[in-house]
């Protein structure tokens, strides 16, 4: 049995698990059974993917007599599919393990259980699809199932609104994809991916397809300004589904983009790339700034997803720029950075969402200003979330830094590009990415510092208890992955190289032979980085210092009340809140970039009412783009409403007029 058959079988089994859940819903072990089966199947996905990256089963395909009658349903398994299978397998597996514990707390498990495994299966089908019809069908099934999962807590008004916005955006995205595939297929109707690769296109046509893909796949991944649904929908779902949507589904959207733009379209003209780079860099800064301002824990994480998607798109844009100029080695570096970051984001964002879920479970709160002091009550969760926060802030020696480092190395290769416009733009985009990385560290100090450190701000946080072992095991697994990949980045780069080779016909030098697992993307004199040694050095010098101090100096310790410069205050409310922590950056960057406003209402002398500080900050995209569109639609539909109350004569004359109009049009056309 070839790899593609095997994967298809597992995906079909996952899809079938959904209806099964309905039949076994009365059994007490239904949830455990569903999630356990999902773990096993995701594990198989990961294994198949890894085997694929090692070269087994690559290139196998299968045609089933379903779908469009003249081509059937095509499936294909290549290196790119294999890489994303690993993402889906590891992410989905760890999240299902988490769900074994977390899912017990769900009030209405049947709102999740039928959709959850089928959602995993649909994502696998998207990866396997090798013709436009199958791809779009799987994509739409994936969207609808995730929409159903977002609606789990449908009693809440916010959730319904989030699901509605998500449905609208998903519909818009699929429409763009439909048009993109229509153009890709060309006049001859080449709907199979293999046939699409052979079609030659004008640069303008390629650019139109690129724009449609940016709209279609970008809206699913969360590219600004199409990201508005993401911070609403991802947090509204149950936490394991949030993790799956943020950690895995956005990657499937990126797969769609890479498959079409890099594989099916082929090299594009150089002037197409600056848009992608700029969109990515702007998305990154906008996303992380909004994460900095947000006080809802899960929503802040969703905004940080937008930042990472921006970073990945910037790396993909760089790849396009290098590729258009035939610089294969540089393109391979940027593409490796993009894929590496995709992998890393899957690991740490899933981990962080699980952490948020554990906090939600233990305290019932998502509001950062109600939390605090969790490091005492939930020590293991806090430690694991700390690892995730360090990884996402791109701190060495963890994995987030390794991929950002590769990206910066790619940015530094820009002087070799012949076009002056690109040359000037890429370092500026590099500056934006550096700004985003620095802001990410600030945002996660804020999230962790307010949420997990300090003193508890509510009774719920004061009485929190550690979560169950399944949840901890799942988080521990991903945290270990973050450390391992960060320390040994060379192994991942080598594992990615078949994908890079397949898409770009070039790759980075083999990292396996470098001493001590150093990574050297171009040449040793140019740049090298060794996560293992950095970790060993830091660990060694920290323990050396601690040992020396404890051995030769003092080891006495006394507990006393906090000093706080002589102003100790017993009330936890005097601690810095999430809004207070964000205030400096809100004033510095938020006023200009986000339109943040502060109003202070001071009572008159003698008036005893409290003074009020109101802060208005939100996503500027809502006000500038979406609100006008919504207003226009509303106005037009109100006007059109009049047509509903006409007399029969008027309706008949309308039909007649339309007929004449169409005939006239036809006449002019011919």
């Amino acid at each position: 049995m070839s790899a593609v058959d095997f994967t298809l079988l597992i995906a079909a089994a996952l899809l079938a698990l959904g209806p099964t859940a309905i039949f076994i819903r009365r059994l007490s072990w239904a949830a455990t059974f569903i999630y356990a089966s999902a773990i096993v199947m995701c594990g198989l996905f990961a294994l198949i993917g890894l085997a694929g990256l090692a070269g087994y089963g690559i290139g196998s395909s299968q045609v089933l007599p379903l779908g469009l009658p003249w081509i059937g349903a095509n499936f294909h398994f290549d290196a790119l599919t294999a890489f994303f299978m690993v993402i889906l397998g590891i992410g989905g597996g760890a999240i299902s393990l988490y769900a074994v514990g977390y899912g017990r707390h769900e009030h209405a498990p049947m709102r999740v259980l039928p959709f959850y495994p089928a959602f995993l299966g649909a994502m696998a089908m998207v990866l396997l699809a090798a013709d436009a019809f199958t791809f779009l069908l799987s994509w739409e099934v994936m969207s609808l199932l995730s929409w159903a999962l977002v609606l789990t807590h449908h009693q809440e008004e916010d959730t319904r609104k989030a699901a509605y916005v998500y449905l609208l955006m998903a519909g818009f995205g699929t429409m763009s994809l439909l048009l993109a595939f229509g153009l890709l297929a060309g006049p001859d109707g080449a709907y199979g991916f293999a046939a699409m690769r052979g079609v030659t296109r004008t640069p303008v046509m390629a650019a139109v397809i690129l724009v449609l893909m940016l709209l279609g796949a970008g809206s699913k991944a969360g590219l600004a300004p199409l990201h508005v649904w993401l911070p609403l929908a991802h947090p509204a779902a149950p936490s394991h589904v949030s993790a799956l949507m943020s950690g895995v589904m956005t990657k499937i959207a990126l797969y769609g983009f890479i498959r079409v733009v890099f594989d099916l379209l082929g090299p594009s003209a150089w002037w197409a790339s600056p848009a992608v780079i700029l969109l990515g860099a702007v998305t990154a800064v906008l996303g992380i700034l909004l994460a900095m301002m947000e006080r809802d824990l899960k929503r802040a994480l969703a905004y940080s997803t937008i930042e990472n998607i921006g970073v990945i798109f910037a790396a993909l844009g760089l790849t396009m720029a290098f590729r258009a100029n035939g610089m294969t080695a540089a393109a391979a570096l940027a593409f490796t950075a993009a894929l590496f970051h995709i992998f890393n984001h899957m690991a740490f964002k899933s981990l962080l969402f699980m952490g948020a879920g554990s906090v939600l479970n233990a305290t019932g709160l998502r509001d950062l200003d109600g939390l605090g002091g969790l490091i005492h009550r939930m020590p293991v969760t806090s430690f694991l979330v700390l690892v995730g926060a360090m990884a996402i802030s791109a701190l060495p020696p963890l994995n987030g830094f390794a991929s950002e480092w590769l990206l910066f190395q790619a940015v530094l290769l820009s002087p070799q590009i012949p076009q002056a416009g690109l040359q000037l733009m890429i370092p500026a985009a590099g500056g934006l990415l550096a700004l985003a990385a620095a802001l990410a560290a600030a945002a996660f100090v804020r999230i962790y510092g307010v949420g997990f450190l300090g003193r508890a701000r509510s009774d719920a946080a004061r009485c929190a208890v550690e979560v169950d072992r399944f949840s901890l095991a799942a988080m521990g697994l991903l945290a270990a992955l973050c450390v391992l990949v960060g320390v040994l980045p060379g192994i991942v780069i080598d594992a990615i190289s078949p994908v890079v080779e397949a898409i770009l016909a070039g790759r980075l030098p083999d990292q396996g032979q470098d001493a001590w697992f150093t990574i050297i993307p171009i040449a040793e004199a140019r740049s090298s980085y060794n996560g293992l040694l950095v970790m060993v050095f830091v660990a060694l010098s920290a323990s050396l210092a601690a040992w020396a101090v404890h051995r030769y100096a003092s080891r006495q310790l006394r507990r006393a009340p906090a000093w706080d410069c002589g102003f100790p205050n017993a009330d936890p409310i005097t601690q810095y809140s999430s809004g207070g922590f964000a205030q400096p950056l809100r004033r510095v960057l938020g006023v200009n970039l986000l339109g943040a406003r502060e109003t202070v209402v001071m009572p008159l002398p003698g008036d005893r009412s409290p003074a009020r500080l109101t802060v208005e900050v939100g996503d500027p995209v809502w006000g500038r783009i979406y609100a006008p569109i919504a207003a226009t639609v509303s106005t037009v539909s109100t006007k059109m409403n009049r047509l509903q109350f006409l007399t029969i004569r008027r309706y008949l004359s309308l039909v007649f007029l339309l007929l004449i109009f169409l005939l006239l049009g036809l006449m002019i056309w011919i």
Partner: protein
Amino acid sequence: MVLVVALAPLLVGIVRKVKSRLTRRQGAPLIQPYRDILRLMRKEVVLAENASWLFRVVPYMVFAATWVAAALIPTFATGLQFSWTADLIAIVALLGSARFFLALAGMDVGTSFGGIGSSREMMIASMAEPAMMLTVFSLALVAGSTQLSTVADYLASPEVGLRVSLGMGLVALVVVALAENARIPVDNPGTHLEVTMVHEAMVLEYSGRHLAMIELASALKLLLYVSLIGCVFFPWGIAGSDDGIAGYLRGAVLYLSKLVIAGVLLAVFETSTAKMRVFRVPDFVGIALMLALLGTLLLFVSRSL
């Protein structure tokens, strides 16, 4: 590696001494910072009641990250044993790790001063870090490498003359160094109990050996920036990997004199300017960001600028 730790408090001592003399005070002896650190180490730690394990680990982590970063910067010779472990970008990121932990420690006890310090430190850092990264970009573009030893070797070679972009990079890096080391226009290192303090507010709850580690780490950070500016912009007399003992000796003497000069300059600068309002700081660091960006862009306009 030991050298930088041994020298770091001396640099702090020089700066303090010169500042005292400039304000017509006698000033503490040069070795006072060593005495301070030893005294702190021998004292017992008074730990706030709700401090977590993170609060106790952070001083050592901060010290270790800064130490490793400082050890990776060529001081008087470029042939470092482990220079290939991490390049300039990784050094910037290691300092970022140290800052991340320190800011978390500021939030750990749950006092208002700790929060104020962490929040402002992260605000300043989020401007200073991109500025430093862009300076690194322009250095890397000039030297064709982000490997610090290679950069220093290249910039020490005679074919590099005066360059506008490097001048801009120098100004940007000096501003970043002032901001990151909590020096005067941005923050006052000699203060306690001032509403505008940043660094001191974060470490307010530390005492005893923990405080000693943090003081040592910030001294190391100052030395790191001075060495970095020295080896990149003033690489005279830095010994190559194949120079003999004489070359090393000459390099060491020149390095020490560079340290003294930097210390004196810093002290003169600090006594002659006043501290800024907190919300003027972003403008100040923003200048560094813009200069660094301009320096990088100039390189694209003309290779020789």
